[in-house]
């Protein structure tokens, strides 16, 4: 009886494998995670062109917001990936000054070769990232709390050590030409070289997250961690790697700033915490994980930087810029929610 049923012809339709028709449509664009960020950026540009002046698109003007965007953007990408994976890292706020103080104390105060300072700075980033990652994976403490702890611990450590070792909270650093060239020059006298790092990293992240198979793992982990683990994704290792990435990126930005400005201060990074979260959320990443895109974070960062700097090109008092950022954040979140539910309810036309 068994063999008889098994040999019956398959009743179900055997559909041939077809690839869906080339899927470019305006509707399709709006269902992408970066749709809101793109519209937001457009709106912000129009706003500052109307109330400000064309100056802000000319090289000197563009440099002002590109510099902000690049420094912020390098940190915003890993913060966004962590958020997609369902985690947060606010310890970057003290990793940026920690990165710059490390290179300044080692290579500026003690005069060791700059490469040792750079390696130590990035090494500290890797170490703090490992601590964050292991604590989050091993304990079940939410990453917001874990990184709140390391935020304060690292800030205190940097302040204490720099006063102990150098007797001050601000250390000068004279980097050699080559290091300046790569990490701390002004291209054409206005553009920080870190802009090029940011653009290169954008391309790299787009490849890894949206084209290589690994990006899928991060989205799966943020969507449903247990199912992702059962599907064979090394969720613990991936989480730790993302924390290492964010701390090291923050240390990198701090290191570049120290080399660029020839000095490092103990307190120079807390604003990055909120600014990177705003950029990421404006960029369409879902705070609870599982949804977002690199291009969205890229646009979100530029939007933030333009609002932050654009105010100088208008006749408004600069104090208003926080108001604009707040309103923009709320609008962006509402817009992103709308686009996300459009994406969810989307189904091709019924036949």
């Amino acid at each position, binding site marked *: 009886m068994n063999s008889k049923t098994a040999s019956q012809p398959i009743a*179900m339709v055997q559909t041939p494998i*077809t690839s*869906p028709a080339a899927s470019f449509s305006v509707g399709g664009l709006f269902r992408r995670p970066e749709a809101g960020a793109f519209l937001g950026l457009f709106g912000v540009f129009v706003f500052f062109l109307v109330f400000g002046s064309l100056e802000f698109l000319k090289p000197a003007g563009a440099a002002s917001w590109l510099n902000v965007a690049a420094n912020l953007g390098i940190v915003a990408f890993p913060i966004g990936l962590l958020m997609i994976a369902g985690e947060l890292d606010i310890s970057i706020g003290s990793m940026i000054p920690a990165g710059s103080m490390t290179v300044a104390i080692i290579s500026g105060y003690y005069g060791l070769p700059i490469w040792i300072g750079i390696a130590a700075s990035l090494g500290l980033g890797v170490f703090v990232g490992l601590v964050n990652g292991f604590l989050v994976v091993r304990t079940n403490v939410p990453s917001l709390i874990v990184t709140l702890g390391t935020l304060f611990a690292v800030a205190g450590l940097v302040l204490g050590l720099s006063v102990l070792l150098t007797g001050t909270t601000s250390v000068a650093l004279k980097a050699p030409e080559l290091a300046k060239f790569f990490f701390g020059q002004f291209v054409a006298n206005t553009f920080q070289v870190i802009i090029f790092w940011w653009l290169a990293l954008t391309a790299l992240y787009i490849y890894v997250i949206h084209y*290589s*198979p690994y990006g899928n793992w991060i*989205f*799966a982990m943020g969507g449903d961690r247990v199912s992702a683990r059962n599907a064979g994704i090394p969720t613990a290792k991936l989480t730790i790697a993302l924390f290492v990435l964010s701390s090291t990126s923050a240390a990198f930005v701090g290191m570049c700033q120290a080399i660029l400005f020839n000095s490092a201060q103990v307190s120079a990074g807390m604003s990055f915490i909120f600014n990177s979260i705003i950029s990421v959320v404006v960029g369409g990443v879902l705070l609870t994980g*599982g949804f977002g895109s690199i291009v969205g974070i890229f646009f979100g960062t530029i939007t933030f930087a333009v609002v932050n700097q654009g105010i100088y090109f208008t006749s408004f008092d600069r104090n208003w810029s926080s108001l604009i950022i707040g309103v923009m954040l709320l609008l962006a979140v509402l817009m992103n929610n709308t686009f996300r539910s459009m994406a969810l*309810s*989307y189904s091709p036309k019924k036949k």
Partner: protein
Amino acid sequence: MATPILKLKNICKSFGPIDVLNDISLDICPGEVLCLLGDNGAGKSTLIKTLSGVYRPNSGTMEMEGQPVEFTGPRDASTRGIATVHQFGGTFPLMSIGRSFFVGVEPTKGWGPFKIFDRQKANAVAIKAIQDFGITRIDDGDRLVGGLSGGERQSLAIARAVHFGAKVLILDEPTAALGVKQATHVLRIVNEAKRRGLAVVFITHQVMHAMAVGDHFAVLIRGAIAADFRKGEKTREEITDLMAGGETMAELEAQIDGYIATHDGHAPQLSGAAG
């Protein structure tokens, strides 16, 4: 009839002092649906978690295809071909159908370090897998999983398990949150999986659903197998009584009638945690 693919012998499982499974012996055969029935707290979920490697039994043995096995974890069980689909399908609501179908085993094209995720292939394979199960309404692999109905999500998860070579398919209350039509869809897919020669373990509280697909029934009462019978050996009423934990439905109805009679026609108020 067929030789069992999975054989449980005298499985016991306790959590500390609480004995949850008591001396369970069961045969799970390919091409058959085994319905696990029983009241709330009878131990059904615990039993399938033991089958799928989440828990280790305290005593007793398992044999898979004649060989003794001990699962080190859910991954171990799933690489050996035991796939579990949980109530909400264990899918990723904000991922596309194609991407979620291939989580962990992404198809790539290109070579060397420049391999890229092959979206077209992933979408095409996922759509074909689910359409072959008769869900022809799903035809765009870029749709997000969260936009599918509950039944479609269950179907997608089952299609995925079958596509990746599951031999034993474990479904924990797949029809629990579904309406009549959606539940019918899922039952059809269960039948299709059986027809393809999989062993299916199916948990449900609905006698109709169990009778629609089951070949073999096992009723758990307080962690022990109270009845083990094949299709056609018991009537619907007998099964219902067993599922209610051995009390006959007639007795329960008599109790309720008695209650209403003594309380001026008000139905009993269920207080506290029900079910």
